[in-house]
């Protein structure tokens, strides 16, 4: 049973992730707002609830792993990692600057807590398959989590990996589909239709769960349920909203990798600041 306090803590974490992402992008600079906002609750549930991980021992071999296959959502992951103390919060302000620990896309050699280099889309799920095979050989019982985008799954390699995962019966592997229905240039349905979603994964031999990707309780329950599924990998189709929480960026391709005007930035900060009261805390 997931307590209300746990859910509140994850909502708080998701809110913090959003605030940090807005701060990192700032005024007039380009950044992946849309896809970072859509995965905030998924990351909160993984890092804050489900995954066995220890920022003080980031290389512990028995840890659970998370691979952000849609590497352009790195900002959200950086925010989560900083929140858990993988590196100082002060690193966030240096993101994407020359010599920074935090690159435009995840780099495991530079950033504590990053598990794979992604950003060239479609590769993360295969990397996660490799981790799942390796950790199963070790018998650690570690679990591997991966997030792919609904635009990203046009990459054929995703389906090579999907076939491999069911071939190898990788029940230690869970993939989230960030089902926000918008890719870089427009709505998925208009641009390159990757639907229908759930039956594709089922056809590839996966157990499919569906959830509201912004409801921390539903996500946690799906993660708990996935642990009970044996013999097949699990895909959680998370129904999300691109740009969630930032009204001008919601459900539009304009902020896939967009820049905010000063007014937009101030509005985003004001809206996120208003959450402080709800959570009765500062960041």
């Amino acid at each position: 049973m997931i307590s209300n306090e746990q859910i509140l803590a994850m909502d708080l974490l998701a809110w913090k992730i959003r605030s940090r992402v807005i701060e990192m992008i700032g005024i007039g600079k380009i950044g992946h707002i849309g896809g970072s906002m859509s995965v905030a609750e998924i990351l909160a549930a993984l890092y804050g609830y489900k995954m066995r991980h220890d920022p003080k021992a980031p290389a512990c071999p028995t840890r659970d792993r998370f691979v952000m296959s849609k590497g352009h959502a790195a900002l959200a992951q950086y925010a989560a990692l900083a929140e858990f103390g993988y590196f100082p919060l002060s690193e966030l302000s240096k993101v994407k600057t020359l010599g920074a620990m935090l690159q435009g896309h995840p780099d495991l050699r530079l950033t504590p807590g990053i598990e794979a280099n992604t950003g060239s889309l479609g590769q993360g799920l295969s990397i996660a398959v490799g981790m799942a095979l390796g950790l199963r050989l070790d018998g650690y019982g570690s679990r591997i989590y991966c997030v792919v985008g609904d635009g990203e799954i046009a990459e054929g390699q995703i389906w090579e990996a999907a076939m491999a995962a069911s071939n190898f019966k990788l029940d230690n592997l869970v993939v989230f589909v960030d089902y926000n229905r918008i890719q870089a240039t427009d709505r998925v349905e208009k641009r390159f239709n990757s639907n229908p979603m759930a039956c594709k994964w089922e056809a590839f031999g996966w157990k499919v769960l569906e959830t509201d990707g912004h409801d921390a309780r539903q996500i946690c329950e799906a993660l708990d349920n996935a642990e009970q599924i044996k013999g097949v990998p699990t895909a959680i189709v998370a129904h999300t909203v691109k740009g969630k929480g930032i009204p001008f960026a919601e459900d539009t391709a304009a902020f896939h990798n967009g820049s905010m005007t000063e007014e937009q930035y101030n509005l985003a900060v004001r809206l996120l600041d208003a959450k402080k009261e709800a959570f009765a805390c500062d960041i």
Partner: protein
Amino acid sequence: MQNLNQRKAYGEMLVKMGAENEKIVVLEADLGKSTMSILFQDRYPQRYFEMGIAEASMISTAAGLALTGKIPFASSFAVFATGRAYDQIRTSVCIPHLNVKICGSSAGLSDFGDGSTHQSIDDITLMRVLPNMNVFSPVDALETEKIMEAMMKIEGPCYLRVNRNDLPILTERGQPFAVGDVYPVKKDGDITLFATGVMVSVGLSAAAMLAEEGISLSVFNVPTIKPLNVVSLLSALEGSRAFVTAEEHSMTGGMGSAILEALSGHCTLPSKLLGIKDQFGTSAQGYRELLDHYGLNAAAIAEAVRTLHERGIGQ
């Protein structure tokens, strides 16, 4: 009898090293009977992963295995292992500098019958342009074994280029192997040939032809394409008036280019590069016939050496 086949050496070494090191895992894209990685499956099925005809996913999966401390060897035909999976080698493996070993089998023109789609004339170029990647091209089956041992000592990405056909043994079991060094097969010539893979034995034939004409040619085997040891290259050129390079690969960005890059600023000797001239492969009934078609034979090497020799007369 000594094994003459590099593919067989690859498969047998996987088994041998796999017995000594449990971290070794092997991935294959449905060509295991040809790459001979299947020998490993017979012995260690739990550590062998048939990835299907999906080279891109195979390489990224190898990266994931490396991230759990395993030492993955992934094999396929050289064209597919490198070209089909190029971006996966780049992003999943080389940028994070992961300990993934890739074997490109049936490399060069050695799959003579299958034609342009299956003949890798570009794998050396593709692999050596990648930062962090090490590139090896053995001359014989014995050297294949030594290179695999050397690859185990490198904590990082390695590419091994393997010939499909039986090749003569030109090295000795006890002969040391150091990454980056070039090795004399025939010494003390006026002109030096740097050759890799099958072209080393072809170079020896050229040296025999030239000896009858009173021209002495040194033949050096270049088993490492990257990194190249400049000191070793310069020492091979001591006493030489010129050098020739020969490879079963495109001249664009191949071993010859690598040697010229390494020697740039260190050496002003005249040189001539031999290789495949900006074209794809084609089907043929035999390996030698195809090598002849692309001018990868003793006559072509001898002609290049003669030209350099004549240029040098009177100096």
